[in-house]
């Protein structure tokens, strides 16, 4: 494995950036649904509180969009800045999704500006249409970025290459890459101990390596990607709408003004439907895909140190109650069945020691031949077992995170149904809800709604935060599942791999984002005081 100094620091730094981005993206995706619903209600009733609520959400959306854009920039730039080895993947596997994302990003911004500029100046239905187009581009953007992330989780098109090292991994689609070149690069990384950046930054490196990918649209063919897209986007919509719900229910609780209950009633059905379908349909298919394509991650989620039987999980994950939950013992056993060396594996692809030395020479890599021989004589089983051992310590954490996430989801699910029973007349549900309201809110309607929305928001937040944790930590020890370690794509800049840099960068990210969130709160909660100066100036001009 390449020099690993700083990997943990920079993983933490990336996580901070991604989590902040996730908050803003959720609002970016969720708020427009609420705004459109409010504008629709306004167009039907003419009630001004709907328009006012839509405006407040629009102001928050505007500040939020700026924060989402910069955290997106941070995540993107951060990716190439501190993980520059990913540049090779961005220039190949990710290029089509990221290039198409430019369409989404540019049009998202153009239509958001058009919406802000024309809100209140054109008919509500036209505003809904403009915002609807914006929202479609925002969803499209989420689809493309999730496709990229999904490829790192399930590298579709590399077929049996990961399985050659880790026999418990499935086949990742038909082969659409140059296997010989990928394996040669991997062996050179192992033998040189250099991060990938050291190789690809050399002039002519790309020319020497040549074509590694035959189909630029490969990332879109993965079934795992499409389930992930649905799962992530619906999760973001739920988080965004839950924040809007929490804001209006807080206003209701503080003011006891029933207009806020009316505002909630307008968009709550959207949130309710999403909360109902996420775990029962989309989440289920997500789980099935993880169990099949990411077996190590699934074992970590289920805490399967050893293989065991659980008919419910077996049925849900594999469609067969008798199917065992495959644990690390089976993975180790399949690793031990591998008897070949890395050199023999390379030979089977037509790569000889001389080929590797020639490629290394052409790429300008100073290779220690002794180290190369050591790598080539390494048993595949040793690599396989070593990587499994490196993640074993995380099984407990991932397992707890996963079940806490499920717990959060259940809380949100039940609270959402109860809130529906309070807000609307639903046979049976409403009578149960109202009884519970009498207990938790002591008959205070506004307080009960506020408590239920807090439970929804907390449950949703737990599910989202820990869901992403499970997805990303469960991907380790690889950055690209079964292929590339984080230490192989890390920056070569020593300073960037220090704790000081991580603290410095984290402090800036946290400060800016907290300031931004506070500003969003001010925008949402304070009435504007028409400044005296402006008042005087305008009255003078009238």
């Amino acid at each position, binding site marked *: 494995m390449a020099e690993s100094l700083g990997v943990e620091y920079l993983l933490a730094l990336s996580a901070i950036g991604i989590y902040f981005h996730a908050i803003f993206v959720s609002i970016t995706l969720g708020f427009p649904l609420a705004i459109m619903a409010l504008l629709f209600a306004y167009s039907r009733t003419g009630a001004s509180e709907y328009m006012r609520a839509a405006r407040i959400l629009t*102001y928050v959306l*505007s*500040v939020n*969009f*700026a*924060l989402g*854009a*910069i955290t*997106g*920039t*941070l995540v*993107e*730039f*951060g990716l*190439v*800045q501190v993980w*520059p080895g990913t*540049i090779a993947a961005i*220039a*190949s596997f990710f*290029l089509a999704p*990221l*290039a198409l*994302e*430019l*369409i989404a990003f*540019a*049009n998202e*911004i*153009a239509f958001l*500006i*058009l919406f*802000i*500029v*024309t809100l209140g*100046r054109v008919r509500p239905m036209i505003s809904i249409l403009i915002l609807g187009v914006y929202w479609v581009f925002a969803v499209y953007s989420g689809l493309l970025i999730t496709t990229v992330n999904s490829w790192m989780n399930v590298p579709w098109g590399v077929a049996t290459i990961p399985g050659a090292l880790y026999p418990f991994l499935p086949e990742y689609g038909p082969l659409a890459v140059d296997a010989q070149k990928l394996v040669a690069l991997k062996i050179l990384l192992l033998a040189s101990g250099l991060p990938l*950046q050291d190789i*690809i930054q050399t*002039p*002519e*490196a*790309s*020319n020497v390596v040549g*074509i590694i990918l035959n189909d*630029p649209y490969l990332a879109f063919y993965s079934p795992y990607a499409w389930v992930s897209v649905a799962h992530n986007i619906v999760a973001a919509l739920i988080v965004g709408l839950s924040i809007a719900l929490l804001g209006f229910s807080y206003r209701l609780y503080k003011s006891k003004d029933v207009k806020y209950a009316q505002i909630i009633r307008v968009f709550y059905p959207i949130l309710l439907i999403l909360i109902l379908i996420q775990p029962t349909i989309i989440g289920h298919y997500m789980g099935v895909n993880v169990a099949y394509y990411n077996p190590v991650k699934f074992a970590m989620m289920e805490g399967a140190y050893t293989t065991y039987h659980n008919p419910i999980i077996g049925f849900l994950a594999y469609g067969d109650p008798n199917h065992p939950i495959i644990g690390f013992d089976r993975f180790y056993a399949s690793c031990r069945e591998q008897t070949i060396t890395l050199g023999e594996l390379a030979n089977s692809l037509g790569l000889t020691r001389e080929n590797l030395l020639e490629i290394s020479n052409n790429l300008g890599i100073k290779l220690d031949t002794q180290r190369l021989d050591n790598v080539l004589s390494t048993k595949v089983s040793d690599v396989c077992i070593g990587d499994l051992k490196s993640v074993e310590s995380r099984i407990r954490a991932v397992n707890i995170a996963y079940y806490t996430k499920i717990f959060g989801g259940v809380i949100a699910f039940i609270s959402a149904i109860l809130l529906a029973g309070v807000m609307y007349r639903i046979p049976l549900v409403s009578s149960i809800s109202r009884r519970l309201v009498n207990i938790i809110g002591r008959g205070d309607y506004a307080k009960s709604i506020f408590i239920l929305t807090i439970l929804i928001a907390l449950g949703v937040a737990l599910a989202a935060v820990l869901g992403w944790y499970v997805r990303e930590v469960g991907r380790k020890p690889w950055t690209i599942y079964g292929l590339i370690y984080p230490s192989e794509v890390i*920056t070569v*800049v020593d*300073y960037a791999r220090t704790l000081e840099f991580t603290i410095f960068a984290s402090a800036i990210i946290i400060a*800016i984002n907290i*300031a*931004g969130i506070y*500003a969003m709160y001010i*925008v949402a909660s304070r009435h*504007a*005081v028409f400044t005296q*100066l*402006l008042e*005087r*100036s305008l009255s*003078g001009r009238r």
Partner: protein
Amino acid sequence: MSGGEVVVTPAQLLGFTVLGLAVLIHIIFVSITLGVGLITAVYRWLAYKRSDGELELFARKVFRLMIVSELFSGVWGTIITVVLVGFFPGLVALATNILFTPITIAIVSIMIRIPSIAIFWYTWGKISERAHSTIGFIMALSGFGVPLGFRTLFSELSYPHTISVFLAGNTPPLWYAYTSPLYWSLYAHTVFAVISTGGFVIASIMVLENNVRWVEIGLKYGILFLLAQLIAGPLYYLTIYSRSMYIFNNITFGPYAPLFTLKLILVLLLLALSLYSWFSVRRRKTIIGYTKYLGPIALPIVFLGEFINNAPRYPYIAVLGENGVPISAFFNFYMNIPASLVYVILGFLIFSIIVFTTAAYLALIRGFIVEKIES
């Protein structure tokens, strides 16, 4: 490194062209927003200090430009990044190594700049004037941090100060790019240009308001920094002469000489018209009709300036004295980039420009964004 005939394939030419297009559009936008941001912050603060309502109204009216254009401007920065990584991955890998510090400065500046613009606008009237003025200065100054970082890349591509250390097999120090003899004259040229352009754009927009005082403010900044350019421009030109003969020859005697001449003519025209407008508003307190053309003249100058700053490197991606590093050295050979994908994306980007222009027209010309703060 090439000294002989350099072959550029159609794919490489497409990459170079798309990159150039994205850079030019981005530069046009930021040349407006950096200067406008600074002038807004100054006058919002002066309004607070002098209790001058008209200045606050001016600041708020001018800031509509930022609210409308900054995010769309930013998206072109992202487009540049994706185009760079997509077409020239080796160059990005190298830049993120040897220019790590400048790029970090630029990223931090972007992170401060964009939210502070939205915060500045939407908290107007909701927080104290002092706090609001402070946010304004943070917003304005952070904008200049972006070129402070990214201009090192442009400087290195024209004169490989840090790249040459790397190519010699050494690791350049973290701040080494800032010791480049080309960098600071380029940065000064950039800063003066954007403030001057911002001033002239404000003057043009304020003609629509028919307010002599507001036009005068725009003219003041436009002319002052245009005069500063009369020093910074020749200084940068001389630095190019001493450090990058290939570019100098292309601009002065080669295929780019007509464009360079056109740029100089436009600068003289801008100077003459702006001085005429200035004397008119100062002495006669009237706004002459030509004033509204100052912004539209300043922007092509920025376009031409940036074009002749970058295009003369062709067929090299980075210039090394009399020749350079050919485009192919850093080009993406990991996959064949489908030309159809590039054209589809360009088509949608043009569509987004049309939508944005409509929004900007409604906001700035039709006055859809009003100065009144809504509760």
